[in-house]
């Protein structure tokens, strides 16, 4: 049996095979994870917790492991270390206008204290990365990008914009997610707990200057907290001391985001996939659709006019076997239909779930498809996303 927790990483397409891998980076919480019983795996060049073998008080709340951590986050609150992600500040008098030359989102219209999901796109209409952009002030944008793409993204920004880019690699990033996250946050910072969905503010938590946003990657209500690296452990400890909270690894982070129908860059999005195909047309700002003046804009306009040749859809395999990324999809008439890009077991759905790209004539809900898993044919159905309804605060 191929027994390897790093199969997780391979499944994520995050680490290409490298005969002489570079030493892994660590997050400011590395020893904290190990102390709590984390199983560490390489992910996007970082040693990261994939799941925990919890002990003591934490074990009484959640036994640990991907399944239990996932379900705990859906019913209580989970704490994720996402410090591997890239954080940066982009500043300048016309910074919003400048960033709009690289993304399809309405950044000028974003109000101070608000953040927005957007994409770096390329001239062919493909996606360089997906990211969060927060407007802290009219001259200052806070960006959070994927770990696997931060070198590419920051080089892209530096090359194309004259605004000042300050990479914040001296900060940790924590995510507190789940229906009880707001109650927990209210004890540490009532101002944070009062943030609206996609709101962001600079706040003091336990005497530490943090940037807190109401957002996340699980489909649940929650917060992301940017913290100076030296204070990360203290804040993380303060959070797991709350009776609702346990630490959650990357394994559950992946199953939670998949149930929520959220894309993972490298699996569901890449430089050859357009926002239109990905079902992310909504990220194109209304005002931006007047001029389509962002990389790949005209390609996307044409795709919208004639319809994309393929679309990202939700897929429910029949039975219990999971269809993982790169699984072939075949139409009922035997013709090639597409490819699964993310797939696995959904603990809250209690069954296998997947997302993938299919020909546009096969993208309607209810369409029956066949998946080729380990040489066998597994029937499946196209279903609406998300698999688990979002429960964001509105």
């Amino acid at each position: 049996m191929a027994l390897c927790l790093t199969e997780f990483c391979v499944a994520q397409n995050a680490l290409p095979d490298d005969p002489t891998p570079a030493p892994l980076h660590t997050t400011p919480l590395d020893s904290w994870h190990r102390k709590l019983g984390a199983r560490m795996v390489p992910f996007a060049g970082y040693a990261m917790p994939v799941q925990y073998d919890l002990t003591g008080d934490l074990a009484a709340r959640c036994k640990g492991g991907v399944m239990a951590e996932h379900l705990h986050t859906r019913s209580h609150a989970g704490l994720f270390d996402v410090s591997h992600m890239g954080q940066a500040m982009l500043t300048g008098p016309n910074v919003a206008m400048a960033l709009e030359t690289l993304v399809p989102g309405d950044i000028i219209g974003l109000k101070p204290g608000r953040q927005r999901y957007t994409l770096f796109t390329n001239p062919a209409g493909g996606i360089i990365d997906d990211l969060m952009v927060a407007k802290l002030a009219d001259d200052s944008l806070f960006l959070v990008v994927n770990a696997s793409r931060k070198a590419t993204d920051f080089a892209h920004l530096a090359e194309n914009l004259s605004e000042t880019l300050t990479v914040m690699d001296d900060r940790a990033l924590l995510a507190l997610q789940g229906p009880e996250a707001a109650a927990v946050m209210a004890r540490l910072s009532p101002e944070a707990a009062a943030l609206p969905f996609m709101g962001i503010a600079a706040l003091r938590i336990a005497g530490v200057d943090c940037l807190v946003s109401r957002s996340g990657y699980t489909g649940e209500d929650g917060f992301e907290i940017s913290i100076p690296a030296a204070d990360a452990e203290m804040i993380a400890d303060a959070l797991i001391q709350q009776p609702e909270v346990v630490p959650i690894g990357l394994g559950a982070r992946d199953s939670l985001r998949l149930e929520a129908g959220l894309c993972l860059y490298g699996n569901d999005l890449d430089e050859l996939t357009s926002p239109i195909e990905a079902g992310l047309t909504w990220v194109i700002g209304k005002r931006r659709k007047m001029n389509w003046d962002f990389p790949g804009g005209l390609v996307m306009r044409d795709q919208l006019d004639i319809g994309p040749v393929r679309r990202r859809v939700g897929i429910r395999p029949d039975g219990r076997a999971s269809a993982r990324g790169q699984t072939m999809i075949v139409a009922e008439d035997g013709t090639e239909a597409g490819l699964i890009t993310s797939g696995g077991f959904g603990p809250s759905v209690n069954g296998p779930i997947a997302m993938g790209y299919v020909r546009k004539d096969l993208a309607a809900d209810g369409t029956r498809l066949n998946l080729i898993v380990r040489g066998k044919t597994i029937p499946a159905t196209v279903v609406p996303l998300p698999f688990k309804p979002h429960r964001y605060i509105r």
Partner: protein
Amino acid sequence: MASKSADKRFTKEHEWVVLDGDIATVGITDHAQEQLGDLVHVELPELEREVAEGESCAVVESVKAASDIYAPLAGKIVEVNETITEDPSIVNSDAEGEGWFFRIELEDPDVFEALMDQDAYDEFLETL
């Protein structure tokens, strides 16, 4: 956890084998289930299937990944444990007992002796 008897043998692919006459009972080791985490799906071989040593003949899936199970010895599949396909968590709770996978009628029961014993397997785990 089931007691670890002296006549239980192991493979480097983390399968255990117990021999009764020429019938070998096969499962995955406690170490294997522990590493895999919560199992959510098991696929077992068809009855009467002839399997070669090292041939992939079953699959276990956790939330994270799917892993092949190989026939540790050559022979014919004569029995499979359907209770673990209905409830894969049995493999997590009792991998080396109630969580057995299948039984093989061995072509050559003597090859059993060539597999690792508990001490050798424990030593092997130390090297991982």
